[in-house]
């Protein structure tokens, strides 16, 4: 384990970004979102939750798949090059790291999404343990340990130092890179460091235990209850405040639905691109004949049934909610998955 003083973090970012693109939480216009590190960027790793998760780094909100052009009666096609340079994502919290696994299950299983796969292959994730979790956090319910975030490298901010521990090969090589660049400030943490981290972990776990949403009962979300949950009259009551905006899906680290569209840029040619879609939108899964989900109730139900029932049924019981709580704080109508779990989940929620 290594450690680096908090006030030297900019050197760390600088060192990494000299070799590889570095994405980390950046404050811009009063909000913190993942962005590319530059000398002008204002890194902000203190904010617990970025507005959007780090999902963009691997599955960007919008990406061009290929460009085509019609010129002099001929059509040419120019596919987008896959990610082929290494990059680093710094500061991902445990929930977001878990979310990447959720996405992996979708995009890396056959048929493999080559755009996503290339980014995963070249991306190194440096996670950051949570320090003061909030009341909207409910990661514990999904066995996410905010004190031990995992990924290629995991880090802890304890007091004025960042503690750094490589977990994978990619993590080791990033560590080597940093070590070489920052011989003075990036040092072995030693046993004392380990102890500090352990203490911090215990404290955080203690807090998490006390969080109001840490003890949800998910027991009823099982494949065998699918139809019962699907037909629950509770949906009728729950969906009504939903405005059908895409906030929950766009801030969600695990939502993976996308749409593929064309943009005619005139002389610049046509861009065949994919972009995040939201199951909350009325044209989600719209087909030529119409839409199989004609009401907001159906669309609303789809989102939560997918997260809590369909996805786990296909992925060895892994829920595709990671308890990050972004939807809890961002929904304009204060609707969220927790309210759904409480209403439809096991009796433990009473």
């Amino acid at each position: 384990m290594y450690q680096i003083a908090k006030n030297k973090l900019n050197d760390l970012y600088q060192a990494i970004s000299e070799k590889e693109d570095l994405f980390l939480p950046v404050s811009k216009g009063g909000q913190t979102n993942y962005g590319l590190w530059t000398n002008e960027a204002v890194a902000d790793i203190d904010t617990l939750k970025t507005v959007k998760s780090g999902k963009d780094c691997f599955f960007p909100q919008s990406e061009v798949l290929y460009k085509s052009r019609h010129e002099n009666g001929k059509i040419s096609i120019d596919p987008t090059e896959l990610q082929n340079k290494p990059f680093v994502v710094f500061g991902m919290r445990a929930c977001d790291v878990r979310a990447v696994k959720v996405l992996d299950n979708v995009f890396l299983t056959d048929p493999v999404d080559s755009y996503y796969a290339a980014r995963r292959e070249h991306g190194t994730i440096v996670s950051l343990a949570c320090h003061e979790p909030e009341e909207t956090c409910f990661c514990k319910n999904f066995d996410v340990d905010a004190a031990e975030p995992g990924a290629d490298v995991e880090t802890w901010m304890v007091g004025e130092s960042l503690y750094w521990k490589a977990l994978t090969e990619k993590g080791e090589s990033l560590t080597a890179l940093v070590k070489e660049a920052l011989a003075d400030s990036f040092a072995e943490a030693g046993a004392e460091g380990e102890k500090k981290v352990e203490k911090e972990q215990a404290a955080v776990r203690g807090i998490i235990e006390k969080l109001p949403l840490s003890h949800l009962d998910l027991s009823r979300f099982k494949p065998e209850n699918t139809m019962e949950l699907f037909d629950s009259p509770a949906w009728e009551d729950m969906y009504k405040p939903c405005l059908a905006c895409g906030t929950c899906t766009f801030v969600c680290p695990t939502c993976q639905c996308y749409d593929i569209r064309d943009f005619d840029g005139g002389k610049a040619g046509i861009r065949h691109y994919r972009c995040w879609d939201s199951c909350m939108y009325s044209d989600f899964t719209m087909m030529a004949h119409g839409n199989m989900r004609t009401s907001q109730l159906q669309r609303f139900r789809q989102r939560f049934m997918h997260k809590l029932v369909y996805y786990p049924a296909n992925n060895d019981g892994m829920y595709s909610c990671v308890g990050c709580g972004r939807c809890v704080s961002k929904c304009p109508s204060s609707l969220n998955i927790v309210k759904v779990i409480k209403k439809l989940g096991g009796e433990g929620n009473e």
Partner: protein
Amino acid sequence: MQVENTEFRPKIVAFCCNWCSYAGADLAGSSRLAYPADVKIIRVPCSCRVNPMFILRAFQRGADGVILCGCHPGDCHYTTGNYYARRRMTLLFSMLDYLGVENGRTRVEWVSAAEGVKFSTTMNEFVAKIHELGENVRLEDLRCKG
């Protein structure tokens, strides 16, 4: 005259109402009153047919200036169309200005069917103004470049 490639050739879209301004442009033509070829005219039935969406789209697609010409207030073929256009464009232009887009890139001018001279001078002036402002970058859409 040899036009050099490096020279800035603005793209200017002029929406002209069918009854007055388009006819005014025709008159400028038949009177051989020159104005730069950068101006391309789109015929619309009335100035009130011009949707702010059209103007933004032109900028998105790389236009450097957009001008809307209609009948003089009071002379609208449809009686009141240009009055609505006047309010719409005033508010739209003010909004673009507020967003930091150079306010010289948009213009409304009332040109009657008899005002070939005015049409030509207006276009000459407008093109000169756009030359002064240079290329539109603030409302460009990178997806439409290159």
